[in-house]
């Protein structure tokens, strides 16, 4: 690799050769509204689970896009599905569907 004079953190690298985009595609195809997320953080601010433990929908989005499915599975389990986020979201994203799709997708693609 060419030395540009700075280092790359392993965890932040997305290796496109290895990238498994099945879950990402599954979620975005079934809930395209998630594409419009502008990371405003309204969902996190109102979140019932986020009030009890560190939990962040924007982080979920990031993990999903990075293909970090192990971390994603751990994170997504924190959601209580209470539904405050969908009422807050300025982009009308159906976040609860995103959560359910990720949960289902993780089980689905783990076995394939």
């Amino acid at each position: 690799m060419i030395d540009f004079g700075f280092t790359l953190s392993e965890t932040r690298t997305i290796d496109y050769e290895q990238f498994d985009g099945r879950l990402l595609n599954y979620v975005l195809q079934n809930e395209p509204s998630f594409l419009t997320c502008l990371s405003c953080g309204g969902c996190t601010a109102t979140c019932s689970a986020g009030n009890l433990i560190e939990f962040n929908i924007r982080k979920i989005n990031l993990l999903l896009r990075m293909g970090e499915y192990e971390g994603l599975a751990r994170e997504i389990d924190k959601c209580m599905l209470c539904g405050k986020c969908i009422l807050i979201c300025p982009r009308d994203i159906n976040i609860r569907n995103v959560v359910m799709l990720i949960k289902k997708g993780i089980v689905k693609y783990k076995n394939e």
Partner: protein
Amino acid sequence: MNNYLPELFTWPFILGTSYLLILVIVRFVRWFWGLSKYDKIRIWKGLRTRKTLRSIKESFTEGLLHRKIFKTNPVLGYMHMSLAFGWFLLIVIGHIETIIAERSLHFPFHYAIFSRFYHTSSHTSIISYIMASVMDVLLIFVLSGVFLAYLKRFKSSVFGMKHSTRLKSGDRIALAALWCIFPFRFLTESITAGVHNNGGIISQTVGKLFASVLPVDVIMYPAWFAYSLALGFFFVALPNSRYMHIPAEIFFIFLRNYGVKLKKRINTYSLVQVFSCSRCGICLDTCQLDLAGIHTQSVYVLKNIRNKNLTDEVLFNCLLCGRCQQVCPVGIEMNDLRITQRIESTRQYNSSYDYLKEGEVRKSKVIYFAGCMTHLTPAIKQSMIQIFNYAGIDYWFMDEDKAPCCGRPLMQAGQYDAAEKLIENNRQKILHSGAEKLIVSCPICYKVFYEDYALHGVHVQHHSEFILELVRSGLIPKNAGTFRMIYHDPCELGRGSGIYEQPRELLKHYGQLIALKKEKEDSLCCGGSLSNIKISMQKRDEITNLAIDVFKSYDPDILVTSCPLCKKTFTRVNKVEVRDIAEIVAGAIENKQSAKRHMTHQMKKHVKPTLV
């Protein structure tokens, strides 16, 4: 006539009937077998009680007369009644007629069905002529139903229905056969009457007419064959079509009366309910999703369950408002059925929530649980605090700072195992506080607290019930205002928990309550329900707007509800002023307090100069 072997033309009928009988019996046995041990004991114990009589009566009123369909839609009710009850009478009176003609109780079954073929003699007595005429009139009665059925298929608006259900191939065969049976019967019996110069008042006349223009001798046998063929086809197609609902509904009525209940797992009782759906389509017109162009109504879900092709998109796209359940003439428990399907669908990924901590507990007789949604509508929370303080009640605000969700939204999504974890956490806190009363502001929480929390010794109350109690005991001021108010029943509080009267009684102390055409059991859903995982916000808004248009036609000053989610949903479209019932009461308290302040202020102003 050969008495040992039935005539050739009767074979389609005999084969069809035998196939149907065997299949229905096999299914009944299998369904019974699949029930839990306790359900079997329940049925066994119920057999010799009044429950059996009640089931027989109900099978008659619902299975034959279709009383409930009559209530919702008289024309549709008449169609079903003329077909079911008319056919039933034709069979019964046909048998009596044959008994008289044969002068015996022992004769092959098909003799009664094809009575006119076997009994060719002209009328020997006035009785046989009357019997034949009665049969004619009954047949016309059934034919009127068939005619309506044609009409419904091609122009459902005649029935005041916007939709007719979509059919699959098994249904098509059965429907075509059913449509043919009675016209064929009428033609055949008339032709036969023309040949033998007998028949009743109608068939004789028509028969004579036929005899004058048609070679009735030649076409008589083929006509009987066609009639028998139509019957045979119908009976063969019946178990594989929606008409399976006829035997299944009767089985369902018996099981329901013996006290069999739906479980959290799919069992054969859920199957019985699935098969009992007649696909009448009444649930289509009552569903608000339909107005937003979403076609995931109960009738389709039941069909998908039966055909084993239910998708998540259909299953989770439902508000679980319970309006279809309310109008279903068969009484299928659609919400519970859908939830059991959701449980199956999401079984593999329930969360453990192992991060939940025990948390602080305060000893108190009264607990207030606002709920997630109430935290999003702070005016309701503030009003409740004001009411508690004014009435001088010592309470513990359980979820003021940190508490998990009540668990109900997870349950609506089918995640029962996950919800159990949240329930246990909250439950321990409530029990440890030594509370006697739990006041809840959100109907979604309210339902789960009294249904699934097993809080023995704790009286769970929705805030509308609680405030009414306070008003009755004089702790809270009344204020007969002149506001024109509409009360919107939240689904979870009304149809879900049966609380209709308390909020209305409370509101009558604070203004003028307008009665609506669609209220209480019939009330509309706001469209915000958390039970629907799939619906987009835009579609939700469509539903909300349509509901608000209905409310606005009554020209109210305020739309009052008692659910924070309903309030949030209605305020989102911003067309009418929306308040929670607690805000109305808190407003009255506010008025009284400010009047008092004003008075003391005035008095001080007034008194001061004289003092100086």
